[in-house]
């Protein structure tokens, strides 16, 4: 279970970082969302993975650490608010700059645009 969990977190984080490095605001927002999923899962695992473990004393033989769950809850709320803010900001930026590139202008391409570029640009 641990290996699969770690693999999933790693994959999410890698995808998140890759998308964050892209140039368009929407894709960056997607990347940040993936990154925050990875973070939340990671934080959750920092209390060790236990099956059927209650977080409250006197409920089961095995206990799971309640603190990471509280941390994840806080992180989710904060991440959610920040993403919402970023989406609004990206829309504002789209309106102000006239395009959705994070630098406010689409970098000039040295080669003539192919049909795929036209569709994306």
């Amino acid at each position, binding site marked *: 279970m641990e290996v699969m969990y770690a693999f999933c977190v790693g994959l999410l984080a890698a995808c998140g970082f890759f998308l964050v490095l892209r140039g368009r*605001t929407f894709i960056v927002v997607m990347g940040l969302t993936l990154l925050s999923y990875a973070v939340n899962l990671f934080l959750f695992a920092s209390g060790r993975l236990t099956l059927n473990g209650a977080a409250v004393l006197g409920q089961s033989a095995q206990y799971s650490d309640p603190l990471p769950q509280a941390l994840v809850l806080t992180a989710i709320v904060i991440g959610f*608010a920040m993403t919402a803010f970023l989406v609004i*900001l990206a829309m504002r930026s789209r309106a102000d700059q006239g395009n959705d590139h994070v630098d406010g202008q689409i970098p000039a391409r040295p080669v003539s645009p192919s049909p795929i570029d036209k569709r994306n640009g």
Partner: protein
Amino acid sequence: MQHLPIFPILLPMLAAAFMLLPPLSQSIIRQRFFAVTVMMTIVAVSTWLLLTAHQQGTQLYVLGGWQPPFGIVLVADRLSTLMVLLTSILGLGAQLYACAGDDKEGMYFHPLFMFQILGVNGAFLTGDIFNLFVFFEVLLIASYALLIHGGGKQKTKANVHYVILNLVGSSIFLFALGILYGTLGSLNIEDMAAKVSSLNKPQQALVKAGGLLLLVVFGLKAALLPLHFWLPKTYAAASAPVAALFAIMTKIGVYSILRVHTTIFGQDAGALANMAIPWLWPLALLTIAMGAIGVLASPSLRLSVANLVVVSVGTLLLAVAMQRESATSAALYYMIHSTFITGALFLIADMIAKQRGKAEDRYVIARPLQNPKVLGIAFFIAVLTIVGMPPFSGFVSKIFILQAAEGMREMVWVWPMLLLISLVFLVALSRAGTTIFWRAAGDNTQGKPLAPLKVIAIALLLGASPVLVIFGGPITQYTQLAAAQLHSKAPLNSTQSPIKEVKEIPKGQSHNAN
């Protein structure tokens, strides 16, 4: 008074909430009076807290009565109360300046400003590293909104970069906290410091990774070299009072590095002792060099000042990297000095920009200033201070840092670098001053008096420079004691808590603050 440590957090939070409610939300005049009154109260409370922490020892405030290391504590020691006082005075200056008209450019300036103060004070006072993250987010979301205050293309663009960078930073922060909690099993800074020396080999590697990830995050906030590229444009784009308040934001990063890498990973951390220091040395030196180049290359006064902030961060981290009591003490003195003066310089740059028409604060020939005398004197004092000329505080603080480096192997790097940047500043800022004040063309539109509030604000911040020199004795004594407190391994266990446990504080931040 046992509830004193919570007040610098509670007051701005309640004030911000009140300003969003009807009697105050309708009128900007009422908001201004209310906000300035509250800010003065915060200054008074912070002074009181500082004196209490100085005379009666560290004040622990146990939120919700949950004893540390399980609950969250606020730790008001000499260092954190000094930073809180610094924030509130800087905030008061920036706010007075804003009250002269800049707060009308957008909505909700004063509530956002208060939320920002809340976050900054909280970040300084908290003794829990996850709570530090929460307060970082509080101050960040307020700063996102403040940065875009007034609107405009430039601000939107700078803000997009700033927000995305800080969101990535927050994610890395959480990764680091996850690693540290998973290995150390605690988030209380004192408790982590106690546990870090008794780790086995594989755990050490994990904790090292976590600690260095924290260095990356704090380096991003502080604008350490490879992570500083966002700063100049962001600060130059922000409106003046916001930029002045942001002078404290980089210091939060420096403060966090100081806390985490001196308290947790300090001398007593066993195999992990001083693990960030080999990184800090070269990066701090390069930050100073890059900032100095930036100051020389800047085409406008605001960009120059923003690059001065980068240099001041580099200088501070250089002193942090020395890991000596005397160096930390010098860093604290330099921190007070540089925060106030860069804050004042942002305000002065804005006043200059407003009087030069389309040229704004760019270094081009433009119409003469309307009030060359007042602005000239203010600019002159600020520049002398930042360059490090006697008799102002820049000179004294630079000497302290040079003295602290004495006898170290790295002295051959520190001395030339710090002395050379003074020369660079002198060249760059005298060029700026000559162009702005003397190379003018066109009609001299004498007349309009300066807004008194703006002059008061600048005088308040600039006044720190002579005050730091005149009261140099007591202030250095204080910074030395604060540095000694930070470097000594004085456990703050719950058994030694100087104040009694406090019952149920509903307003306090708690882990499950959802």
